[in-house]
């Protein structure tokens, strides 16, 4: 087994991988940029190396600096987490050249999946169902016009090198095609340095469902069931769950078999995810393959009882998968909320800053994967993901109940977070009935937040009034805890009172 693993990432996923290392008796090496010195992953690592300024190109995306740290620390493997260098074939190749094991697929498999058009071509050959469209970049506007006419509107234009919604355009009619094509091309060029754009039939109100894969280096490939990821905002997932409420065992087997074909066609090893679009008739179409651990991997871990990071490390270590497809058993239901530093009252724009108070949920069925702590200042330089809160239950209702309870316990003070959004989603009747698609969240956000119209009841407002006065009297430095600060007329006298201090300050005025 590896003796030491370098984690080329930050935030909650770096902490997640460090934990896996420690659980397996492996030393964990952290890297950090200047603004991340106080980050949790540095605190939790066995070794930590500075790798430069906040800008990712000079730190977390800098291949040479990461490999230098690998050499200096004597790490024998690198876990890339997600994002950053995790899907960078050049990095995987550089690791191989440097003699350090990259915990992920081979560079060749990444290459095969990295370009959406090339992936489409090879999937077409492997007999994988694809959304009707071109598997090659569009040559001219005329070609785009012909293909769109053939497959029928609405169509979707997509950047071949794309991701995260960049370089994507939905086109409802031929009149809009030209300008959309130009816009998609220039956005693709700007975002990825590659203007290649292809065309697909747009699926109306699709679900986004993905299949988790594992493949060892001895030719064994299994699927671990699907995740429902239809709740998205700006093409970013917000809530994910496993299993999907609309997938039954037979559909799961069919999607799983296709996903295995996809992985095998790419010569895939380690953990990966095959994404599908599912239309309202439950037809599913291959979308793309993510050649890394997903943010939402915990929901799969909870319903399968497996640890994907442990398995990634074991596979990279050359071990065989310790179970067969038949031994994978799904049980219960899991839902993940991505807690972001975002301001719900300001269009969910990022809200970095100092966390002044942090109350943490725990208890039955609650998993918390977090990169934050009380007193930490969330830097403004990176993705605003603070933590993931995952609820598990015997069934979907219980998972929702537990998650709602835990969200009510969670308090992040000092910065804005999207915790209130999850309360809104989890209490929505359509969500509870599992009537969701990729447009669900945009529609929900366009509606007025009902909860804001509800006038707080008189007693709750009174509590707020009294507490506001008490906090003012206690002052910002109220450091005492667990002591009685005030007592109504009915009870016995309190032995100690923080109010004394307040009263003394008062007397001094």
């Amino acid at each position, binding site marked *: 087994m590896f003796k030491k693993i370098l984690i080329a990432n930050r935030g909650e996923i770096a902490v997640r991988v460090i934990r896996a290392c420690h659980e397996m008796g492996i030393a964990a090496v952290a890297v950090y940029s200047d603004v991340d010195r106080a980050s949790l992953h540095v605190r939790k690592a066995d070794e930590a190396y500075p790798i430069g300024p906040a800008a990712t190109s000079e730190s977390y995306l800098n291949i040479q600096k990461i490999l230098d740290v690998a050499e200096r620390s004597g790490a024998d493997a690198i876990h890339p987490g997600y994002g950053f260098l995790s899907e960078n074939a050049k990095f995987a190749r550089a690791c191989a050249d440097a003699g350090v094991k990259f915990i992920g697929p081979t560079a060749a498999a990444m290459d095969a999946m990295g370009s959406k058009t090339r992936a489409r071509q090879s999937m077409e050959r492997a007999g994988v169902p694809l959304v009707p469209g071109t598997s090659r970049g569009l040559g001219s506007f005329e070609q785009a016009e012909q293909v769109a006419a053939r497959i029928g509107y609405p169509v979707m234009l997509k950047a071949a090198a794309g991701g995260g919604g960049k370089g994507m355009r939905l086109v409802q009619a031929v009149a809009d095609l030209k300008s959309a094509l130009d816009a998609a091309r220039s956005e693709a060029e700007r975002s990825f340095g590659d203007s290649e754009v292809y065309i697909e039939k747009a699926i109306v109100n699709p679900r986004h469902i993905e299949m988790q894969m594992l493949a060892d280096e001895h030719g064994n490939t299994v699927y671990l069931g699907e995740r429902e990821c239809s709740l998205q905002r700006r093409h970013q997932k917000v809530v994910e769950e496993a299993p999907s409420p609309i997938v039954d065992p037979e559909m799961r087997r069919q999607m799983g078999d296709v996903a295995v074909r996809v992985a095998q066609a790419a010569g895939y090893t380690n953990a990966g995810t095959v994404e599908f679009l599912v239309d309202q008739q439950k037809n599913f179409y291959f979308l793309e393959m993510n050649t890394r651990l997903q943010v939402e991997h915990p929901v799969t871990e909870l319903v399968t009882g497996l640890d994907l990071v442990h398995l990634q490390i074991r596979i990279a270590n050359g071990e065989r998968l310790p179970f067969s497809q038949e031994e994978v058993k799904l049980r219960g239901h899991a839902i993940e909320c991505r807690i972001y530093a975002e301001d719900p009252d300001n269009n969910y*724009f990022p809200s970095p800053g100092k966390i002044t108070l942090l109350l943490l949920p725990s208890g039955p069925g609650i998993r918390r994967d977090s990169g934050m702590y009380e007193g930490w200042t969330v830097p403004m330089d990176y993705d605003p993901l603070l933590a993931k809160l995952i609820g598990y239950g015997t069934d979907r209702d219980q998972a929702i109940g537990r998650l709602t309870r835990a969200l009510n316990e969670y308090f992040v003070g000092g910065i804005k977070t999207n915790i209130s959004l999850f309360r809104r989603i989890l209490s929505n009747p359509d969500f509870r009935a599992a009537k969701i698609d990729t447009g669900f969240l945009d529609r929900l956000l366009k509606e007025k937040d009902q909860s804001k119209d509800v006038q707080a009841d008189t007693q709750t407002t009174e509590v*707020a009034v009294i507490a506001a006065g*008490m906090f003012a009297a206690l002052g910002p430095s109220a450091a005492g*805890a667990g002591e009685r600060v005030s007592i109504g007329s009915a009870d016995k006298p309190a032995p100690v*009172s923080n109010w004394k201090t307040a009263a003394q300050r008062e007397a001094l005025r």
Partner: protein
Amino acid sequence: MTYEIAIDGKTYRLDLSQANDCWSCRVDGREVEVDAVLARPNVLSLRLGNKAYEVKCERVGGDVHIWVGSQRFAAEVRDPRSFRSRTRAVDDHGPKKLTAPMPGKVVRILLSQGAEVEAGAGVLVVEAMKMQNEVKAPKKGTIQKILVSEGAAVNAGDVLAIVE
């Protein structure tokens, strides 16, 4: 101690007083039976009658937010005997400030000083956490002043420009 506390557009008068180590509390003159324990700094366990509440206090800049369970209240606390916390005068006319909606970096300035601007038109772009946020003119007018330069780091609430 007496406070004036404004919440949800309504102002309450709160009297907190002590006798024999017992505290009593009056809201707008009405006696309220309340029992409070400071569990941690900024966290009160409060009982009103026998109802139990976990109340959190968040001070962000000059604002005080009181969270009763998961419900947030923006509170303004005035101590009638002091001038410290008097409400700032609200001025709906004259020059308007454009403030940073979040901490971040000014990545682009779209209009220069003296330019005409429509209400809602973008004036500057602030970036944080890979997201760009256009700061828009609150009213039609002229850009009187740009107070920051491209590349400048700003905090939430910083004044970036003035439109008049």
